[in-house]
């Protein structure tokens, strides 16, 4: 059977499963559509949050970035897990006690202002749409390779599938499909990692294998890797970074953003009790950690495998001939995500760091005329089983897993966007008298529109999937998280303070991002080149969200203290959110 047929069976089979579950759990009332009837067990909910959370960025993109950056890109690992500590302690239980459907609804009620609610809707849409662009970019890479179609066709197929189950199923459909998706994606991620761990070290547990001995050389895996890559002029994998400020701020942005992303917070409304909201956060992190502890192992081992594929006789010998290159390189070349240019005309693949001035002499003495091989970081996880020569079904499995990750998150985000529009914007502001049926219809239409916009923007993403997603986190960190946290932990912050804080945080962060990444991410509109020499104090646009959050907090406190205290009933509301007694089910107005 051809690899194409195997991929089709795995991808098609998993899609069929999701769609069947979505139809089986077809939503009835409005409350079912948004929060699955409020009756989801913490462990089930944890797995659903895991699938919702782990997107194309975690599955497809992250290990590739860690492989390329080594220690410096550990920020993704800590940032995307550490946020759950903030969620569990600072937001989830209180928002569950508050018991409404959406994040803007809490902000609108707590800050007794329809404008606050609308500003929250704006922040939510900007963050979520940026996030969906990253998902669509990841899904495009996966489809273009495994279904052997071009990226645009891949995007359209993805959009149709998301539309079907997100629109028909609502949250309940999504909760159970997401549990299924979690199972598919975690199996798909760990099985190739286990095979590779056994091949390289004999230890079948990937997180332990990366710190074990490389069987072939007798050195620890990381030592061997460092040796191979520094021989070719690349930076050491485990070396410390000099710009610690940027690393701290980037990690912090990802953590705060995690806690401020509405599609994750909305999940905590679906557990029966406040106590369960706390457990849910813990279970979610357990499920997430299974992938996040495997990712750094995949990163280091895949990088080592890639180097030994190109330099099979060691780095002192010449690399392989282009004509002898393995099948997987040929197939990825078709997508344009791997490129080769024979600069010195010897027919071999000289892959090294030609930007390293210290290595230039050695390269010249070996007759090398520049680096000849480059690959898109987003392909590393998908190509990983092929690089390690694993059987065809493992490759089919990873295709299904990558798509599960991208589509589950896209669906969760679309639900958050559609509920913000139908529930907060239309019902909350434009037409309060709208019927339940009309509200559902509006939710479905806004989902369809959001899918169309995201698909369109996903064709030209402003970076690798994980980087686009990191920008979305920065935006959420700077806008929503501070408002939510102050709404619970301060009785003094008032309507004017919260609104000015959110607007200040959001605009500060967006301007800083757009200056380097292009206005509205439109290519060619950036004012400054996006590199460390141009960043203010060495802070990258990916890290600015943490500073934006600080701006938000400061503005909100200063403005609140200069204006009136919130009314007594609001102070009582804040009190009541703090104590679990009397929570009841999530309710509508």
């Amino acid at each position: 059977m051809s690899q194409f047929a195997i991929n089709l069976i795995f991808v098609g089979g998993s899609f069929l499963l999701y769609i069947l579950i979505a139809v089986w759990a077809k939503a009835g009332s409005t409350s079912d559509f948004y929060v699955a009837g409020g009756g989801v067990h913490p462990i089930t909910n944890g797995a659903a949050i895991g699938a919702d959370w782990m997107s194309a960025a975690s599955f497809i993109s992250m290990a590739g970035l860690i492989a390329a950056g080594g220690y410096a890109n550990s920020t993704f690992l800590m940032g995307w897990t550490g946020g759950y500590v903030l969620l569990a302690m600072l937001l989830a239980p209180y928002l569950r006690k508050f018991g409404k459907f959406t994040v803007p609804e809490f902000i609108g009620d707590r800050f007794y202002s329809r404008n606050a609610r609308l500003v929250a809707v704006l922040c939510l849409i900007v963050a979520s749409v940026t996030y969906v662009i990253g998902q669509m970019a990841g899904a495009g890479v996966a489809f273009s390779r495994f279904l052997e179609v071009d990226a645009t066709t891949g995007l359209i197929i993805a959009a149709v599938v998301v539309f079907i189950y997100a629109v028909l199923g609502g949250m309940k459909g999504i909760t159970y499909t997401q549990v299924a998706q979690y199972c598919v994606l975690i199996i798909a991620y760990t099985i190739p990692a286990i095979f590779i761990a056994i091949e390289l070290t004999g230890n079948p547990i990937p997180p332990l294998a990366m710190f074990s001995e490389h069987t072939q050389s007798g050195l620890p895996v990381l030592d061997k890797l460092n040796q191979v890559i520094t021989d070719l002029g690349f930076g050491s994998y485990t070396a410390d970074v000099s710009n610690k400020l940027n690393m701290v701020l980037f990690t912090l942005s990802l953590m705060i953003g995690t806690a401020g992303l509405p599609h994750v917070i909305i999940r905590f409304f679906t557990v029966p009790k406040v106590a369960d909201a706390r457990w849910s956060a813990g279970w979610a992190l357990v499920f997430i950690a299974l992938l996040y502890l495997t990712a750094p192992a995949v990163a280091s081992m895949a990088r080592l495998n890639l180097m030994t594929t190109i330099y099979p006789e060691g780095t002192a010998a010449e690399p392989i001939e282009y004509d002898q290159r393995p099948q997987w390189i040929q197939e990825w070349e078709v997508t344009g995500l791997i490129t080769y240019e024979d600069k010195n005309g010897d027919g071999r693949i000289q892959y090294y760091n030609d930007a390293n001035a210290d290595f230039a002499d050695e390269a010249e003495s070996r007759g090398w005329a520049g680096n000849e091989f480059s690959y898109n970081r987003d392909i590393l996880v998908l190509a990983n089983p092929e690089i390690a020569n694993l059987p065809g079904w493992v490759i089919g499995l990873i295709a299904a897993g990558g798509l599960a990750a991208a589509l589950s998150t896209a669906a969760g985000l679309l639900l958050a966007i559609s509920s913000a529009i139908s529930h907060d914007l239309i019902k909350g502001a434009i037409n309060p008298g709208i019927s339940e049926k009309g509200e559902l219809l509006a939710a479905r239409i806004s989902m369809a529109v959001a899918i169309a916009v995201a698909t369109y923007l996903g064709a030209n993403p402003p970076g690798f999937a994980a980087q686009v997603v990191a920008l979305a986190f920065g935006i959420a960190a700077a806008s929503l998280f501070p408002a939510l946290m102050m709404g619970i932990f301060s009785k003094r912050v008032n309507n004017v303070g919260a609104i000015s804080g959110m607007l200040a945080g959001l605009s500060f962060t967006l301007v800083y991002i757009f200056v380097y990444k292009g206005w509205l991410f439109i290519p060619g509109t950036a004012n400054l080149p996006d590199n460390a020499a141009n960043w203010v104090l060495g802070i990258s646009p990916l890290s600015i969200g943490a500073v934006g959050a600080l701006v938000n907090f400061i503005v909100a406190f200063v403005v609140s203290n200069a204006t009136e205290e919130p009314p007594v009933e609001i102070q009582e509301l804040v009190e009541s959110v703090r104590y679990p007694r009397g929570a009841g089910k999530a309710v509508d107005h």
Partner: protein
Amino acid sequence: MSDASSNAVLYWKANLRLILGCLIVWALVSYGFAILLRPLLAGIPVGGTDLGFWFAQQGSILTFIALIFFYAWRMNKLDQQFGLAEEE
């Protein structure tokens, strides 16, 4: 101040203390051991690299899980202790 409200105030203070303690550990393993204090841990070898690298790629994640379960367990007990738990 009535008994009910002083009870609630004590509960909230206990919660804030617990959160503060947990967040200190949270910051210590990630921003501390994994980033800022990594040079201090450089002498402790872990499979081909040092302890700071291990905290950055695995140790901090494991600590985060332990922290959340510890917090959930303590808080659910405090809810009962102060009589503020949700009705069954």
